[in-house]
């Protein structure tokens, strides 16, 4: 009885497929936030005055600052992909690290912004908030939920980029195989784009 070796190429590489999968996932993310944007627009229509009043209390300066931070982080993310395409490994790792730092800066600002609101007694279920008209309760409900969920996405993005840094360091992500980093980049741009919509809706339209 002769033992024959049988070889199969089991997992194939399909970069276009991987990108397609990520785009589909980003669709679902857009729809996830889309549900909340629908809520926002309908409640804004129902309570125009209360939304106007409540939005005035948000800190536009911190909001603007955070927008600038996120936009820059998108730039460094894109540059890190460009770097790995040119086979500049350590530059790519450095740019990914900067992206994480910027994301961290965003979260720190968010922390100070939320704690300031909390110290004024404005948080879900608080007496101060419940004493306000229902339009403002809904505004702050949406504010906490939407920016909170966006913040969660920022944290997930930071973890993903950290994993990509390790992959780049170990050489799994390299000049001729960088689809992982590219898809994480796509995700990071989505996080950015959602903020681009949240920022005017909550901070600018007053």
């Amino acid at each position, binding site marked *: 009885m002769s*033992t024959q070796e049988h070889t199969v190429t089991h*997992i194939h590489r399909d970069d276009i*497929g991987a990108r397609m999968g990520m785009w589909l996932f980003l669709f*679902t993310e857009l729809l996830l936030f889309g*549900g909340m944007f629908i809520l926002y627009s309908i409640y804004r229509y129902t309570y125009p005055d209360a939304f106007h009043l409540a939005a005035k209390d948000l800190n536009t300066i911190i909001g603007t600052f955070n927008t600038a931070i996120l936009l820059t982080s998108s730039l460094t993310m894109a540059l890190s992909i460009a770097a790995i395409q040119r086979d500049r490994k350590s530059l790519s790792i450095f740019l990914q690290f900067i992206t994480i730092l910027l994301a961290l800066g965003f979260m720190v600002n968010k922390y100070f912004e939320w704690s300031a609101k909390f110290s004024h007694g404005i948080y879900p279920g608080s007496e101060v908030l419940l004493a306000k008209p229902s339009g403002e309760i809904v505004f702050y409900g949406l504010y906490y939920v939407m920016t909170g969920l966006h913040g969660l996405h920022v944290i997930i993005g930071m973890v993903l980029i950290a994993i990509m840094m390790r992959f780049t360091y170990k050489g799994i992500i390299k000049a001729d195989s960088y689809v992982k980093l590219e898809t994480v980049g796509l995700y990071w741009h989505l996080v950015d784009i959602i903020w681009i919509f949240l920022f005017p809706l909550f901070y600018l339209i007053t």
Partner: protein
Amino acid sequence: MNETITVPTNGKHPSYLEYKGKYKGFLGWVLSTDHKRIGILYLVSILSFFLVGATFGFLLRLELIAPGRTIMDPQTYNSFFTLHGVIMVFLFVIPAIPAIFGNFFLPILIGARDVSFPRLNLLSWYLYIIGGLLAIISIIAPGGAADTGWTFYIPYSVRTGTNVIYALFAAFVLGFSSILTGINFVTTVHRLRAPGMTWFKTPLSVWSIYSTAWVQVLVTPIIGITLLLVVIERTFSVGLFDPALGGDPVLFQHLFWIYSHPAVYIMILPAMGIVSEIIPVFARRTIFGYKFIALSSVAIAFFGSLVWAHHMFTAGMSNTGQFIFSLLTMIVSIPSAIKVFNWTATLYKGSIELAPPLLYVLAFIFQFAIGGLTGVMLGILSIDIMVHDTSFVVAHFHYVMFGGTGFGIFAALHYWLPKMFGRMYNIKVAKSTFWLVFVGFNLLYFPMFIMGWLGMPRRYYDYLPEFHIYHLLSTIGSWILILGILIMFTNFIVALIRGKKITEKNIWGGETLEWTIDTPPIHENFLEIPTVHEAPYEYKQNETDIRQFQEVK
């Protein structure tokens, strides 16, 4: 990322059941990324949940056998119909066909070795199991099982003291599992079709699973966020939907049905694919109107996503809104009818073999026609306002979902199980069981149409004496049905243990790719990826015979 696995094979290729990968035994199953093994994992878990859901349904029917209290108190009754709904909808009907047969057969039908993202596929199964566990926790945890109905309508769902949060989280996690499966299948169909398999040469079940996958991807996130918002609202008393905090409960209903109506197409479309697959095989004929059946799946997926508000005709909506949603609802019936006409046209002058799969398919057509036509009735505003929230709606829903999808699943089990395990079940038993299931089903649900029309509200614990006869008949029907299902499952289990072994590749005479590979399939499905030259369901010999016969006449 080319991973090469070398296996000593003695010149033979082991079937996926015997294949030895990195892990052995139980771990070899729960850590396998082979789409066939994942399909079997789903098969076992989904059918187990089906039996749990069926038990709740059976007990509900038993309670309703006579007016007044029979076996349970009203609170238990409320919990039971909630659990019956949540388990059947989220853990059985939605995932059943895509997750079991889609996983097992989609790659084979398009001539691929696996899905695009095998590891993501396994993750989907784990999410399914976590969702299932959360559902079980919601039953046994202190506080009492959720009693809101599977629709979780606000404001009751933020006020009740029962374990709504676990049930909501279960549905959320299951939705995530469903999304990942959808993404996987869309990518697989786009990227991994065998050379030569153009869009109009793909089998029809691939078309329907593909359309379903799009619906899964596009609408599931909406229910995900909606249920999550209810969880947040309950936990942190954030004002979102609760009218006491300025919210709008009707808005919850909109967001809920934006998903949950398309979800019924996630349930029915794959079953329609199964029907389109089975009919040509047992009629030995080319499917009639291939392109129409294929594109009607896409049309159902599209229009089905735009009709959600017909669940809310009585909830407060403008006349214009009612009119538009009623019209769109009517439009969905067109592609559905196209399918039914094409199926019957395929059977016409076919050489029909009444094997168990075809019996279930014929029952599907019969029951789906009843369920579908009553659906058109419910889409008519005047009728809907009269029978809204009566057991007429319950009957309609079960005729489509159980009489349609449920029977589609049974048909698929009878059609593909021998291929999956290389064992044959007892055909005679299967045929006689079919009649039990068919009679039981119709006796169970048809009386609901009548009593609903006469004014019996749904979800009621007690009822007036004039409805007694219908409830009695219905409960007797549930006994026959459950008996039939138990015999069917026993037949399968006996077949798996000591059924006749089969190695024949093509047991039914099908012309799609799964019948060209070994029974049970080898680990790699295809040693060489096939090149496809012809459309599926050609049956050239038969078609020539029929034509000659007609010319002679």
